[in-house]
Structures are given as C-alpha cells and as structure tokens.
C-alpha cells in the first residue's frame, strides 16, 4: 500500500485502479437502498477510550440485514475497536470505556443490565488468527451450543449443519474426532466460522479473517462469506481493499486523526456508502487517496 503518488501518476492509473476495484465488485453486487432500512445493528455517536486515550471518535453506522459491511482504513484507525464494541469484546480490555450507543434491533447493548454473554450469543465473532480449541473438530463445533445451554435435539446434526454451512463438511466428515490442530490454516478458519454459526447467531463479526491465510484459502473464505450472507448479517474488518470490493455490500472507511496536543491518533469514520460508490465514486478526498493507494 506504500506505492508513491509519483508512480501512480506516471502510469496514469489512478482512475484505472479505482475502476478495476469497482469491476471486481460486480460479481457480488446487488441492488440495495442507499442506507440500510431496518438495520440489525447501529452505532450511535460511538466513542471509545482506552484509559485517557481517545481511540474512536463519534462513529455513526447502520448495519443492514443480510448484508456484508466492510470496515476499512489504515492501521490504528479504530476499525477493529469499533468491531469489538459490537459484541462487547472490548469489555475484556482493561481500561476500555465506551460512550454513546450500540443498538441491536433497537436495544442498546451497553445499557445497564445487559449481559455481555447474552450479546455474544447473538453477535458471534471470527478472529484474525484461526483459534480453534485444542479439542476434536466435533467438540470445537459443539462447544458453543454446549456452553450456552442451547436446546439441541441432535448434536450430530447440528455439527454437520454448521460444518456444511462453513463449506468444511466434505473435508472433515471422516475425521470429526481428530484434533482441530491437524487442519490447515484455511480449514481452521472455516472451522472457527462453523463454530460460530453453530450457536445460530444473528450477526457475525470478522476481524481480518483472511490476513493469516494464503490466497486460495482466502478466496474460499470469501466465497463462504457471500453464501453466509443469505442467513446472517456480516461485518468484516479488512486490510485488503480488494477483499472489501469483492465481498462487501457496503463499506465504511475510517482514518486516524492525530491529536494536536498529545499526538495520539483518534480513529474516525470518514465515509460510509455502498461499496460500489466507495470504490468508483468516493465523496471524500481521503477515501479516494486511500483506495487509490496514495496513503495507508
């Protein structure tokens, strides 16, 4: 991403590049309203602090049902922090404090009396590095339903359903009792997705789910994301703009603004729009600079 502006203008390709990203997006494109009607989740004036450090400033976002929303932006722009607010995983960071509101179907998940554990059963999460449990493939998938006390008629069926949903069943059906650590990185990540959908969440958060994977595994996970869109609302943080362009319906572009006195970088939302608009016709100069590779 560190291509210098000189190089780009020399090849005269700034617009070409933006155009090509928009082309890539064609495959996944659907006709959607400009803003999500009936959003599943919303961030309203969301501010996040780590101790005295103001990490995220005034983010307002709405995530549409059965849509894939990509959060993109340079390192330290707060996109992962925003993602972790959506299922209260930020509660685990010592000193983290959230102001504003995160609503799930209109209910503020940061309201007094809301149990973060209950939030996480509705809003699942897939992490950057595949993190299967040191258990069998079967037990990895069955773990969520077991700990949440889900009423399960037949666990075998549920495990199969989740593994099929994650496009992993055919690869692992003969070795369900074997350790998940024997799988490849891409398979492990799909297992983590299967594990998440086994608890039947409403929303799936993905924090750079492909950054530890090779290109082939990446493309399988991307295909999976598009098929999961039928049943779930997906919010994905990615460093990879091509990925955002390929899979997402909407894209939120964040950037980091250094504080004038302290120099601490506070993340803020620059632009939120349909992915096709962000990549073909960004409104903000900063968005255009970022997606054309001029910074970040």
């Amino acid at each position, binding site marked *: 991403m560190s291509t210098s502006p000189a190089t780009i203008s020399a090849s005269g390709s700034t617009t070409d590049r933006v155009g090509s990203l928009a082309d890539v997006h064609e495959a996944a494109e659907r006709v959607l309203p400009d803003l999500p009607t009936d959003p599943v989740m919303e961030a309203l004036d969301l501010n996040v602090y780590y101790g005295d450090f103001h990490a995220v400033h005034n983010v307002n976002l709405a995530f549409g049902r059965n849509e894939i929303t990509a959060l993109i932006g340079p390192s330290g722009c707060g996109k992962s922090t925003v993602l972790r607010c959506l*299922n209260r*995983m930020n509660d*685990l960071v*010592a000193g983290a404090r959230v102001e504003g509101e995160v609503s799930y179907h209109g209910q503020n998940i940061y309201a007094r009396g809301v149990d973060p*554990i*209950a939030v*996480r*059963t509705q809003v*699942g*999460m897939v*992490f950057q*590095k595949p*993190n*299967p*449990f*040191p258990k069998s493939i079967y037990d990895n998938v069955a*773990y*969520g339903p077991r*700990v*949440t006390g889900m009423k399960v008629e037949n666990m075998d069926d549920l495990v199969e359903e989740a593994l099929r949903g994650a496009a992993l069943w055919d690869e692992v059906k003969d070795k369900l009792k074997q350790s998940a650590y024997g799988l490849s990185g891409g398979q492990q990540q799909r297992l*983590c997705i299967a*594990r*998440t959908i086994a*608890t039947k969440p409403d929303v799936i958060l993905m924090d750079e789910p492909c950054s530890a994977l090779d290109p082939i595994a990446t493309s399988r996970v991307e295909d999976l994301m598009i098929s999961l869109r039928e049943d779930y609302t997906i919010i994905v943080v990615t460093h990879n703009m091509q990925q955002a362009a390929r899979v997402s319906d909407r894209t939120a572009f964040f950037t980091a603004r250094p504080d004038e006195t302290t120099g601490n970088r506070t993340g803020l939302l620059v632009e939120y729009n349909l992915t096709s608009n962000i990549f073909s016709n960004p409104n903000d100069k900063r968005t255009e600079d970022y997606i054309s590779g001029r910074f970040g």
Partner: protein
Amino acid sequence: MSSVAARTARDLTRITTGRSRDRTPGSLIFLGGLWFSLFFGVMVLIVLIVTTAIDGAPRFDGALFTAYDSTLAPERTGFRAGILGSIWLMFTTAVLAVPLGIAAALYLEEFADNGRWYNRFIEVNLQNLAAVPSVVYGLLAVAVMALMGFERKGIVLGGAIALAMLILPVIIITTREAVRAVPTEIRHGSLALGATVLQTTWRQTLPSAVPGIATGTILGLSRAIGEAAPLLLIGLAGAVRFDPAGIFSPVTALPIQIYSMTSQSQEAYQQAASAAIIVLLVMILSLNALAIFIRNKFQRSW
C-alpha cells in the same frame, strides 16, 4: 579515488592468520574459571553421592525397607516406618495443597482485577512466601494444629499441614505460569461464543494448563519429601515402630529418621542412615523424572 578503492579491496582479502583472539591468555583463564566452577559443583555432588552409597552399601538389603527402627539390633534397623510415613505425608500434603494452590492461581490469573490493592497485596505476599525458611512453616503448622485443638501434633495431618504450606507458593507460581501460557486467543474464542469466564476457565484454560500444573506440583512435592526441619518442629518422632494408619496416626518421615540416626554413635546406624539417604535421593529423582516426563509428553506448541 582509485587508490582508496584498491587499498580497501586488498585489506578485505587479507584475513589475519595465526592464533585466534579467542585463545589469548585472558580468554583462556576466564574459560578455565568457568569450567572449574562447573566441575566443582558437579564433583561435590558426585563425591557426596558416591561416598554415601559406599558407606551405606552393606545395608542395601530387604530389612532396610521392611524392618522398623531397632535399638536391640542396630545392624538390622530399617526404615519401614519412615518410608511409609513419607508416602502418607506426600499424599496428604498433595490433597491439601493442590486444590488450594490451583484455585488461588486461577483466581489471580483469570478473575482478579490487578488494579485492586488487595490483589496486589496478595501477589507481593505470595512472592515473599516462596522465600520463607521452611522452619517457619513448621512453627505455623504447630500454631494451626494448636488452634484446631490437637494435643499431639506429630501426626500425619500436622506434618502435611506444614509441608502443604511450604509448597503452596511453588504450586501457585507454577500453576500461574502454566495458565498464562494458554493463549489469549483461546479464551477470547470461547468468550465470543457466549461462554462465561467460569466456563472458559473450566473447559479451556484449566485443561490446557494441566501438564504444567502437574509438573509444578510434582516438583513441589519432591521438595517437600526431603524436608526435615518443619517436621521436627511439629514434633515428628524419629523412633516410630508402627505403620501410619490414618491422618491422625503418629508418624515419622524418612528425613527425620535419617537425622535421628546420624546423631547415633554406632557404626551400624551410620551405615543405615547412608543407605536411607540413597533411598530418599532415588525417591526424589524419580519424582523429578516423572515431572520431566509429563512436561515433555504433554508439551503443546500453540
């Protein structure tokens, strides 16, 4: 310009030959000092073990393990009471110390808020506890036994309380390290699925940490089995001529018997004590070997 380039090139091609600078007298003396220190430590240990084994050689017989302490026939004296007593003490100590130690470590690692003063206070105290001389634990155990109303304190329970307090810090510290070695990603993965902290600890962190905990516990026990001082303080007698029959039974331990026998003047007792020292060493080394075996067998790379 060209002459500079030429000279640089020539210097580069000429590597000094002759004696290495790693072989100057200073380096060699230093190296010699290191070797001497190493040999000194190892040699002292070997000489000690070998001379003890030679001293005790006449007594490596069945009576050493099966006979009780005998004043009538010192050449037939045995350590049956001490060996059985040490085994009883070990089991009771483990039962007392292992659950407490693991629970304390789990609290500190998984539940405690380190910003709270009382948690920091506990931390500092734990570190100090590990450095407390073992005699002090003997005194502490005497006090505990007195508080519980025991007239006779030299029983299995009394000794086990002293030893349990002695190894508690070791178990807590090693358990904390084992728990800390479980990656955060595993915990987060579990929590993100809607598991509680308790479920995450019980189903993910603890099982993954078990090999480390077992290793630490066994090393703690192998330290406890060789201790005499706290047991002397709580009043374990050297001359016990019956097998321990329960946790309230008077008992002796191998190190106590060794201690009381080496203070006797008869040659036969000295021989018996030397043989018992070798038995004790074998017990400790087997425990340590077991700990190493568990560590290597179940070691996981994340």
